[in-house]
């Protein structure tokens, strides 16, 4: 970092007598740190805000890169007197497309057989280990398969979608759409007490008419 300080006049022409500097507007002068600290005239002028002092350190911020003008249109080749430009020649491998397909299929089949053999071996080994430990809890089949596949195909991760905590399963049973509704039987006892019930008779008051009208309405439908 540079020790120079930049001096600028805030107004008109300023003379810093003890440094022998004459500052004009829009001009700058550079002084060393020692000169700046030694100059009483400069300190007085700074106090009077006649001179502005700023650090001489260069800015570390890089300038914006020069903006390149983007093309306004894409230039395309077009037929000219020499005809349509030829596309770049494809590298020759010595194989036809059909041959490449056959090779890919063969490689995929071999890889699949290898993966199945590895998974089967891992699975059988895990089951054998589990059967040798009678006190151990029953292995979860989903977990076992997932572990076998994971170990056989190291880089492959298998999401265990079927694994759910038991409480969730209980929730499913309790809150499903076919939730059973318990309604006890034997609510009405044969030996029920007789209560005093207030009864009154009234004329049918159009009840027959309403019943007939409803019957006719239902018949018409």
């Amino acid at each position, binding site marked *: 970092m540079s020790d120079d300080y930049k001096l600028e006049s805030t107004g008109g022409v300023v003379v810093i007598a003890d440094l022998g500097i004459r500052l004009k507007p829009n001009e700058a002068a550079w002084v060393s740190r020692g000169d700046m600290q030694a100059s009483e005239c400069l300190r007085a002028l700074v106090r009077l805000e006649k001179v502005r002092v700023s650090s001489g350190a260069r800015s570390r911020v890089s300038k914006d890169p020069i903006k390149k003008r983007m093309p306004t249109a894409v230039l395309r080749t077009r037929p000219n007197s020499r005809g349509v430009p030829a596309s770049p020649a494809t590298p020759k491998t010595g194989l036809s497309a059909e041959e490449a397909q056959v090779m890919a299929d063969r490689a995929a089949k071999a890889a699949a057989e290898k993966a199945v053999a590895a998974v089967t071996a891992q699975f059988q080994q895990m089951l054998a280990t589990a059967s040798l430990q009678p006190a151990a809890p029953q292995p979860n089949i989903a977990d076992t398969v997932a572990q076998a596949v994971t170990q056989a195909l190291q880089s492959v991760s298998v999401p265990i979608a079927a694994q759910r905590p038991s409480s969730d399963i209980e929730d499913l049973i309790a809150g499903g759409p076919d939730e059973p509704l318990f309604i*006890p039987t034997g609510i009405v006892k044969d030996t029920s007490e007789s209560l005093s019930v207030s009864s009154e008779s009234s004329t049918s008051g159009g009840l027959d008419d309403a019943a007939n009208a409803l019957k006719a309405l239902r018949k018409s439908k």
Partner: protein
Amino acid sequence: MSAKKKTSAPLGVGLDIGTMNIVSARRQEDGSVETSRVRDAFLDLDQSAKRMLKLSGVNYIDHGDDGIIVVGDAAMEMANVFGREARRPLSQGLISAGEMDALDVLGVMIKNVLGDPAEEGEACYFSVPASPVDADRDVVYHEGVFSRIVSECGFTAYPSNEAMAIVYAETAADGFSGLGISFGSGMCNLALAVSGVEGLCFSVARGGDWIDAGAAKATGSTQSRICALKEKGIDLMNPQSREEEALALYYKSLISYCIDQTMREFVKIKDRFSLPRPIPIVVSGGTSLAGNFVEFFTEVFETKRKKFPFEVSEIRHASDPLNAVARGLLIQAMQEHDED
């Protein structure tokens, strides 16, 4: 139970299961309609009260060491004697799962109100409220319990919407078109039908009990006192005391709420349900027995008529507000035995 009783009276029974009353309706041989009613309340007492109940001639259910249970109107009277609150098997129009005490009581009450079936498997239409739009309540258990009770009484049980029963009972002259509103104790049920076809059915979890509780809270009184005042008779258009003014305010709020909910629910069906002509609104239920209820309802309705989504020809009271639901259910039950 005598299952093979012969009678010349038309078969079929209507059963209105409400929070305050259980009412049955049945045709008699002379063509009249007999309605039987029991108060939907009970009171559990110690064995020590047995002697007093015997002396006063009150019927009770003896549960041995578990005490005794007084059921119906007597429960309300005994509750006053013992300074207790009578218990209700239903809350806000519905029975709650787990209320095992209430089940036995309901079994006794319904058996007594229904009586024996005139023949094995006689049709019994019983009322079921619609699902409330403003509360998370399940009507499936309610319907299942009462189907079981009615079946165990020897009837063939048919659940039917409470408010639609009002439409069947009161709008035959209008071609079974109308908006039936049952202002009950626990809730209000509403059903809109055209030519007997149900277009809209819902309930709100507010009713007479909500009015009592609100007015009691507003006036620093008790709910039972407000209820007694209400049942004694109150003129909604001319309240005479501070309590009556509070009651009128809550009545107005309930009516306004029901109208608003109807407007809201109708929006959901307006594209698939047409109303070719103006239809009547029929109000019913125990809460509608207050003086000048229909005039009061009309006054509130008129403030909302412009926004109401369909034209209303008239607003009228059911011919028998306490028994209209049971009668509407009876009309439907009679159809089951119609041989034509």
